[in-house]
């Protein structure tokens, strides 16, 4: 069998991203979300415009899916297959980080936990698989929002620190896309912090978010940012899961 053509895989990812994004996207946003160089992304988007699968807004210069895409359909990754492929890697992450780990996907506008690994300390914990998380108030949700997830965010305040301002959230989401991770510090539950990174499907499209949850003292440094070692372990785990997804 012939090897897959990388540029076509990437073009497909651009289309998938644009088709689920709540608004039109610029080249920089697309490039950051897919983890591609800006020049590469620009070439792909221009080509897709040529064939009518993508359109450029003449006013803003931003992109949306074109009419040519209307006939094309695509099935998302099955969440149970995703869990099956991710389980071993996320178990390893939970052991190394000594914290609980969750995997979440966007489902009908909601952030749904599809896998949960207990913190390895044998304290009483309950599986949260199937439960919802507020998109605007958790790291998992922010990763999905920042990468084109069509999610309802009603800005309900859960704690004093919940981000309830749309503009402030938008600024944060740009940063999330830019640096490749999201953080929550007591925004959903007092005394709890979380760090999450995107899990990418074939072509680079974000299909899920994986994250570690724990107390702020354990997850964050003095500067309030997540420990670099934790970000690295999380990066290794999501890279491994993404590699599994690329093989199916």
């Amino acid at each position, binding site marked *: 069998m012939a090897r897959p053509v990388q540029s076509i895989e990437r073009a497909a990812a651009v289309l998938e991203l644009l088709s689920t994004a709540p608004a039109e996207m610029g080249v920089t946003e697309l490039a950051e979300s897919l983890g591609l160089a800006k020049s590469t992304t620009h070439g792909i988007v221009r080509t897709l415009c040529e064939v009518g699968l993508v359109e450029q807004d003449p006013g803003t210069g931003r992109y949306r899916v074109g009419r040519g895409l209307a006939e094309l359909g695509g099935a998302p990754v*099955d*969440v*149970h297959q995703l869990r099956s492929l991710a*389980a071993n890697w996320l178990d390893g992450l939970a*052991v190394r980080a000594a914290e609980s780990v969750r995997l979440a996907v966007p489902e009908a506008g909601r952030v749904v936990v599809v896998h949960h690994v207990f913190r390895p300390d*044998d304290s009483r914990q309950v599986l949260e698989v199937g439960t919802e998380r507020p998109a605007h108030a958790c790291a998992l949700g922010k990763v999905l929002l920042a990468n084109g997830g069509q999610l309802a965010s009603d800005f309900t305040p859960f704690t004093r620190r919940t981000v309830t301002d749309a503009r402030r959230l938008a600024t944060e989401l740009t940063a999330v896309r830019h640096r490749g991770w999201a953080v929550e510090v007591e925004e959903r539950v007092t005394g709890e912090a979380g760090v999450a990174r995107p899990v990418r499907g074939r072509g680079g499209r974000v299909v899920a978010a994986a994250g570690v949850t724990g107390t702020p003292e354990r997850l964050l440094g003095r500067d309030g940012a997540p420990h670099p070692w934790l970000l690295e372990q999380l990066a290794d785990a999501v890279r491994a899961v993404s590699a599994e997804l690329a093989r*199916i």
Partner: protein
Amino acid sequence: MAGRHVLAIDQGTTSTRCIVFDRTARFVSVAQVEHRQFHPRPGWVEHDPAEIWANVGRVVPEALRRAGLSLDDVAALGIANQRETVVAWHRRTGAPLDRAVVWQDVRTADRVERLAADGLADRVRERCGLPLAPYFAGPRMSWLLDAHPGARAAAARGELLLGTMESWLVWNLTGGPSGGRHLTDVTNASRTMLVDLETLDWDDELLAALDVPRAALPEIRPTMDRHGTAVAVAPGVPITAALGDQQAALFGQTCFAPGEAKCTFGTGAFLLLTTGERPAASTHGLITTPAYQLAGRPPVYALEGSIAVAGALVQWFRDNLGLIRSAPEIETLARTVEDNGGCYVVPAFAGLFAPHWRSDARGVVVGLTGYITKGHLARAVLEATAWQTREVVDAMLADSGLALAELKVDGGMTADHLLMQTVADVLGVPVARPMVAETVSLGAAYAAGLAAGLWPDPEVLRRHWHRAGEWLPARSREWREEGYADWQRAVERSLGWVREGRPR
């Protein structure tokens, strides 16, 4: 002792792996190589012993390299192996007599029927704790000696050696033709149908009945013992444990005490329940087997029951019905409905095994109505594994008089949360998944590290076992018992389908 790491070799049916664990029993690195499967005739399955030994020589250094460790960092080596697979080899040259005859191979079926006709079934059940079936190693040894002229005489002179896979590996690791030690452990020896479960020694009557000379057989040792020091592959490293893979998984799940049980959900499912220092006889067709033995201590026994068709039913649903593209998608499909809609699938593809033992049964789908969708079928497929688990657990508890407080699970199907929840619901006890999924290798490492003194006692190992997930029973007793009664009525409908002389 300089070394703080343990090497676990898992010599399995399709591959050989080496996993390095650190002294807190955390996974450090793995290397794995697959080997060829030979199917020279229908029902025959063979492996090349020389290829498997060569693969051990590849995976051990590779796992150490990936861990950034040297042999000086290693305290001990443990082996877990595919059970009931037989190797015969020449003591002087180390050359295998033939390919290994694998546990899935049914070439000894006629031979076992003749033994049954000779009235040996009761003796095998009483002495060995095994049903008289072609599944076990002894008749394969006998077959190899019959198939090669002069082999039995060479075996009687001790020139030709017999053993299960761990014997072959220990002999080669400890020097092969130049002083290799010919050993087996109680868990592997007990699967030959040649060992008395009480004395844990070769039984002369059974040796005579199967015509296997004692001189060709390995010395039976405790699971955790000084099996020798490796001179090949890992020179200088003490080999301190060898055990069958399912017993290794039981040990890796820290099921040391009576009433503790694990189930490995894969293509089939293997359930083992630790019963204590006395073998518990089964009146329900289960296997009585040593679970482990520490040198100088009495052996600890277990009851074992296997489910032939578990994940295999999901594979059938995927490949033969084409209703899903990948096995995990069965959960997606099953969750499109609330319940099984009254539909049950009994996967008696090759008859029913424990606790029924009915070779005349064939698979049935019952309760079909116009209402049933593929979602209901998907539920029924997953529930079939759960109800079969319940049957085996019930038989085990009846035979042992023990109660079950929790079931520890491992294997690929534990990623299916709907199945795990259903198992908890039909058993009425919590189901727990450990953080280290590689329980076979972990068990070999635990056993080897214990014997080498890396850990003072098994209780310390319990502190290294961590729960990664847990499913609690969520259904009422009425739901459970009504569902079980329906399942049992479905099983009845699968019986007697095969007619004499018409094998399908």
